């Protein structure tokens, strides 16, 4: 194939040669093109280069070349003809790279087949944008996380318990730990099953609040026994320690969730860091990268266009306002800042008021624990109701406050999100704190012989598990109720009754941040309750699946796409960071329960231990000496201090590497600028010489 044929095949540059300027540009463009054309065959014909490259690299580069298919095919055929010369050289390396590439693409195709709800997510992204799609991707991640962790719990705790219970192995009280004479008789009393006939609606009440038939079941901590199967009992080489398995499974569950979150955060952070430092709202970014080619349908396209128009207008206006604000007088500035400080305190006041309400509601609910019937149900759900109301009202009020504060739009979004996060997670913390205050006794051992509040809680772990179960269930019921009672009617009213009020209210907008915070709150509740209610991850999986379909339905039927969109990549990182905060809260709770509070005497796998954590040292004591010494060595300072020092060295290395890359990027940018200046200089020189040469020609012709 000659150069002329190649050039004719895909002449994308200008076709005419009317002026010198344009011919210069054409020559520049075509020389760039020729360089690309010649890059491939040249490296193909020189044998020295072939030996260095593996055979798959030219093909990989061919995919990356910006040629039409016809040319790529021709080049590939040329390479195939030269292939025998290459194969003798680096054949093993080539075959390995080809094999690895094919394997990776096969695995990717296989996994795509299994990916949950793939088509639905694509449809959502095309119609509503990346921000809403990132919410559903996050929800899918949580569903998979909960399901896999439930499998973990089922495999190590649930199934052995079921097996041992059916084989009828009796639980035992280990004598080494408890001086039985000193246990108060009351501490051992625990009867969860109600006496007498059960009214039919009691069944529903029990289902909703986890009492009655549900209390003494695999659902809650109290049902599990401290069965320890030892080799001698069974006769074969099998031993299983249920309390140890229970505790270690809980620890591994937390570790597994942490690893999943950190892995996903790493992926999102890498993307955020490579683009780091750039102004997210820069105009060239919006114009060059703003269009979403996955938009389907003329309605979505028009909305996207309006979205981009709105963003450009807002940014241009903000720039004008900034220029105006820089010229504000001192008096105006002082009033603005004092207003902001005042509004900050008002927001803090609202949040603290919510916390006080939650603490009071929890105390009141625990005091009126034994009221029966629907009023009793209302009392048990009182903390959940107060939390949900607070989470609903306070952000609305904070939005109104934000209108007065007049921050720039991006700062407003961040401030609102921070307030909502603080509200959600700390309100859960307040609930747990009040609950723990009720359980732990304040006083000497005489008033409190069982080391916990025995009169109210015969099995306090089950009570905590029930509280978490109620929170989860209430969250789901409120979402479904909102869907049915608020969102559908709102759409029907707005669509069929046009008056000024409905036009102003408008159709619902799918607000991503508050929905994500709802998910994080639900997941934190599950993490806190997993130690006391082992089936909670399974319930949460089912809950999130139901929530996925409910949110999808409300998105497609009731919502209009938002005009202000949420950035999808930085938001993925933000969601995971908030989830990590929730995880830390749950971890603090778990550590406190495991290490500080005395387990119940009457129920559960740890009934004979001073603390839940005690099982680990006791089990370590019966390990063979070699293993024990090794484990003690790992935990000692002789090992951990050098490990810490080595990790610091690695971290310093990576920080230095990152700063070097940043500096080289800045240097390359400066080089680009210099190259441009050189180019301008040369163009000016050429123009000058052109001006001179026609005069020379005229002189010659004369």
């Amino acid at each position, binding site marked *: 194939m000659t150069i002329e044929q190649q050039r004719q095949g895909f002449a994308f540059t200008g076709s005419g040669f009317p002026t010198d300027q344009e011919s210069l540009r054409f020559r520049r463009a075509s020389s760039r093109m020729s360089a690309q054309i010649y890059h491939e065959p040249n490296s193909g014909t020189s044998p020295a280069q072939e030996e260095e490259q593996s055979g798959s690299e030219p093909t990989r580069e061919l995919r990356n070349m910006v040629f039409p*298919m016809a040319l790529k095919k021709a080049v590939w055929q040329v390479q195939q003809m030269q292939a025998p010369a290459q194969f003798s050289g680096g054949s093993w390396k080539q075959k390995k790279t080809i094999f690895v590439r094919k394997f990776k693409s096969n695995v990717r195709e296989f996994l795509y087949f299994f990916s949950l709800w793939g088509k639905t997510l694509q449809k959502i992204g095309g119609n509503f944008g990346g921000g809403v799609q990132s919410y559903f991707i996050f929800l899918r991640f949580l569903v998979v996380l909960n399901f896999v962790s439930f499998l973990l719990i089922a495999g190590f705790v649930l199934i052995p318990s079921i097996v041992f219970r059916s084989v009828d192995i009796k639980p035992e009280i280990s004598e080494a730990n408890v001086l039985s004479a000193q246990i108060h008789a009351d501490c051992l009393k625990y009867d969860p099953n109600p006496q007498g006939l059960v009214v039919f609606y009691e069944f529903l009440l029990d289902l909703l609040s986890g009492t009655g038939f549900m209390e003494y079941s695999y659902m809650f901590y109290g049902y599990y026994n401290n069965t320890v199967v030892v080799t001698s009992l069974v006769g074969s080489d099998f031993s299983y320690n249920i309390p140890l398995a229970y505790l270690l499974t809980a620890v591994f569950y937390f570790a597994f969730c942490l690893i999943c979150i950190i892995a996903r955060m790493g992926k999102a952070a890498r993307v955020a860091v490579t*683009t780091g430092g750039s102004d997210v709202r820069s105009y060239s970014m919006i114009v060059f*990268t703003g269009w979403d*080619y*996955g938009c389907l*349908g003329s309605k979505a396209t028009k909305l996207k266009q309006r979205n981009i*128009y709105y963003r*450009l207008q807002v940014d241009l206006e903000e720039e004008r306002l900034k220029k105006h604000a820089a010229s504000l007088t001192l008096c105006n500035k002082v009033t603005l800042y004092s207003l902001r400080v005042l509004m900050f305190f008002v927001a803090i006041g609202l949040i603290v008021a919510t916390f006080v309400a939650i603490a009071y509601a929890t105390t009141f609910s625990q005091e009126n624990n034994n009221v029966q019937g629907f009023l009793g149900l209302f009392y048990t759900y009182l903390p959940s109701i107060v939390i949900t109301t607070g989470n609903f009202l306070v952000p609305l009020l904070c939005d109104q406050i934000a209108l007065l504060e007049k921050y720039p739009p991006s700062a407003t979004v961040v401030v609102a999100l921070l307030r909502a996060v603080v509200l959600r997670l700390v309100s859960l913390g307040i609930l747990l704190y009040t609950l723990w205050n009720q359980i732990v006794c304040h006083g000497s051992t005489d008033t409190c012989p069982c080391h916990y509040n025995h009169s109210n809680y015969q099995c306090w772990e089950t009570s905590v598990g029930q509280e978490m179960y109620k929170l989860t269930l209430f969250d789901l019921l409120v979402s479904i109720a909102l869907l049915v009672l608020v969102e559908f009617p709102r759409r029907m009213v707005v669509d069929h009754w046009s008056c000024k009020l409905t036009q102003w209210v408008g159709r619902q907008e799918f607000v991503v941040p508050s929905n994500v915070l709802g998910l994080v709150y639900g997941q934190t509740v599950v993490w806190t309750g997993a130690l006391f209610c082992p089936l909670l991850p399974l319930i949460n999986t089912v809950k999130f699946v139901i929530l996925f379909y409910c949110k999808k339905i409300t998105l497609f039927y009731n919502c209009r796409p938002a005009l202000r969109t949420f950035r999808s990549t930085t938001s993925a990182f933000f969601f995971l960071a908030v989830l990590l905060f929730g995880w830390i809260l749950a971890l603090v709770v778990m550590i406190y329960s495991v290490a500080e509070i005395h387990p119940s005497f009457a129920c559960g796998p740890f009934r004979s231990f001073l603390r839940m954590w005690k099982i680990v040292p006791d089990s370590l004591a019966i390990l063979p000496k070699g293993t024990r010494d090794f484990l003690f060595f790992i935990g000692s300072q002789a090992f951990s201090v050098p490990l810490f020092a080595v990790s610091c060295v690695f971290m310093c290395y990576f920080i230095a590497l990152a700063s070097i890359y940043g500096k080289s990027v800045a240097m390359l940018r400066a080089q680009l600028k210099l190259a441009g200046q050189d*180019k*301008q200089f040369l163009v000016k020189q050429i123009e000058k010489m052109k001006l001179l040469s026609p005069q020379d020609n005229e002189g010659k012709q004369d």
Partner: protein
Amino acid sequence: MGTTASQLAKDSLSEYQELTFLTKQEILLAHRRFTELLDRDERNHPNPRVPMEVILTLPELKSNPFKTRICQVFSTSEDKDGSLTFEDFLDLLSAFSDSATLEIKSHYAFRIFDFDDDGTLDCGDLEKLVNCLTGETEDTRLSSEEMRQLINNILDESDIDKDGTVNLSEFQHVISRSPDFVSSFKIVL
């Protein structure tokens, strides 16, 4: 070369897999959708060429504001009428696929935005680009003053060598700092 009537030959399939970023399923799906666009008599043609109006009936392209430019960029016809053969169609899908590299995507994006095909984005190109992005209706068109302010800002930010136009490397520099570009520059059948 070219595709046979209703089936894709196996060696063509593996060749296309090597030369594009598409998987086997995607190539077969593209073949199916492409043959649906042909008339009965065109289907037996060895290398059929589909005119631009027919390509633009595809739902993935129908409402895209850059649809004409996309067809013109990927077309290899001598008349430059935007008509596509099956191989051009595969090139299009490969550039817009999930696994295409940032380089390929940014190169083709630059060509799509270059409305006058002169190798650089000057003020006229940028103005047409912004009008495509915001839509040409009355209430979504920027005023001329806003347009001027916007184009000045864009050239301030991205024109590094200050020649009044954005060339390919400056464009790629802006694109490389955007985390969303690769995921939004995607068309999947």
